[in-house]
């Protein structure tokens, strides 16, 4: 807004017409995309909110109709909802924390390798470009299948025995967390590596002259310098974790039972397996509220620094 009020340096056409001409041009370029976004995102969301106030049961269509806030009230007494909410918190926090810690440690380590960083960077790209659904299927069969999967081959040869990694409720949760961490840690690793290699070396030289210990250098120099990168990784990974779907769907389908059913999967199963779309819409509304609240909070945090 402020830009338009400060007049551009006077040219022969006059500042007012030039500014107006620029505005008109901007509108012409921007309007098609904004209209398309409105049609493909905002209007569907309004329709979602409207549907969340209805009972829409594709299995029993004669029961469908306006239901007010019934769906939201129902959520309060739905233990499966609360369990999915809790699983979402566990899944999101653990995967994001693991990605940042593992990614940063690996980047610090790899930075000290004089040659071969390029090869590692290529290796890191592999998991990122794969479709999450393929990753989930790969892990379900080749990596985690009892007896023949890679992990079981290792545990069996070490004499630790065989486990049903995706069939046991607790192991299944750990497994889907491991899958997500495996796929996306390379992202944190690459961002950290890129950030670390741009840090000024003279600060470290001065610190070494002051006989600062390695951990002191890390805590007092490196960490503050890379904090923006860490915050950025945390924000982006949180968004991905909250809308994680395909890998869990492929690996466990949310099961066994509802052991790996994060809110996203619960909304899917309710809408498209149990065909209770009205209730599914209200679950999706909650998920959307959480996502938008967290992204708003994180951007506020980021800006205040």
């Amino acid at each position, binding site marked *: 807004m402020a830009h338009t009020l400060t007049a551009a340096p006077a040219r022969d056409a006059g500042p007012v017409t030039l500014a107006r001409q620029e505005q008109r041009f901007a509108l012409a370029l921007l309007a098609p995309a904004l209209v398309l976004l409105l049609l493909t995102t905002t209007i569907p*969301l309004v329709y979602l909110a409207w549907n969340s106030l209805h009972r829409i049961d594709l299995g029993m269509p004669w029961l469908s109709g306006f239901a007010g806030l019934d769906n939201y009230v129902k959520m309060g007494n739905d233990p499966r909802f609360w369990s999915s909410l809790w699983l979402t918190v566990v899944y999101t926090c653990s995967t994001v924390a693991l990605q940042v810690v593992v990614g940063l440690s690996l980047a610090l380590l790899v930075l000290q390798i004089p040659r071969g960083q390029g090869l590692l960077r290529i290796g890191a790209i592999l998991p990122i470009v794969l479709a*999450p659904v393929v990753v989930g299927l790969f892990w379900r*069969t080749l990596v985690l299948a009892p007896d023949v999967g890679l992990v079981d081959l290792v545990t069996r040869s070490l004499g630790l025995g065989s486990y049903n990694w995706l069939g046991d409720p607790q192991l299944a949760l750990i497994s889907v967390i491991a899958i997500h961490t495996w796929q996306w840690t390379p992202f944190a690793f690459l961002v950290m590596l890129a950030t670390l290699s741009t840090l000024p070396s003279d600060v470290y030289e001065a610190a070494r002259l002051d006989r600062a210990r390695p951990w002191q250098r890390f805590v007092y120099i490196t960490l503050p310098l890379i904090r923006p990168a860490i915050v950025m990784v945390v924000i982006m990974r949180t968004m991905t974790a909250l809308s994680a779907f395909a890998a869990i769907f492929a690996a466990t389908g949310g099961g066994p039972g509802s052991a790996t059913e994060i809110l*996203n999967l619960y909304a899917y199963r309710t809408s498209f397996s149990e065909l209770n779309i009205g209730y599914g819409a209200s679950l999706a509304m909650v998920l959307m509220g959480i*996502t938008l609240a967290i992204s708003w909070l994180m951007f506020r945090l980021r800006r205040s620094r």
Partner: protein
Amino acid sequence: MKRHALRHAMLWLVAGLLLAVWAFPVLWGLLTSFKSERDVLAYPPVWLFEPTLANYREVLFGASSILPNLWSSMVVSCSATLLTMLFAVPAAYALARLNYPAKRASGFYVLATQMLPPMGLIIPYYLVLQKIGGLDTYSGLTALYLSFSLPFAIWLMVSYFEDIPYEMEEAALLDRAGRLRTLWYVILPQVRGGIAVTTIFVFLNAWNEFLFAVVLGGNKVRPVTVAMFNFISVEQTQWARLAAGAMLAMAPVILIGLAAQRHIVKGLTVGAVKGGGRR
């Protein structure tokens, strides 16, 4: 000196382990895709086996061929990419370079749409498309793909437009070249690289998409990510065929990803870097 060598050896060991953990599942899948079903389930695993192309033959030309699915993925991904770029590039230029009222608000709106969880969009789309007979059609799925690729592409292109020096367009404007001519002949050639990278990313995201494809797809429009489930059921997993199918489905993205690996980090961090209000 000896300590130094030991340290290096340790570093190499860890780095090698790292590479193995990331690359191994994919390489193992590649290996499995050339095995016969009998060799797949052998314990201990066989490293020396007679490689066979039977799995690929079956996956491509057999009863559950994924060729139609590869075609579906190609049609949806290409049309989504083309439409996205057509709308995103001009919008990004306006956001990056032009002054107009409510500029911050429009930028924030684009960013907010990028944050929307896909699950929130799929339900209304399903209900509407079901009513108007749009399920299992290319246009329905493509429209939904625009919802996530458009905000992403706009923000990535903004970062490329911002890198161009202002002097270029000022000089062109002083020469009384029209704004559109300036954009077309002076600005766009400068961001050719950015357009290429953005196109690649939009294509990758569309190709890998699963949730929208599985809900809105059907017998006619069935992207390859959904077709992976052809080889897996409660009763039986066709290991080697699944591996072969996955390799074929992922070959395009792996090749593109490796070719564009330098730009991957930049593409993945878009939105957070810019939208976070760096300035």
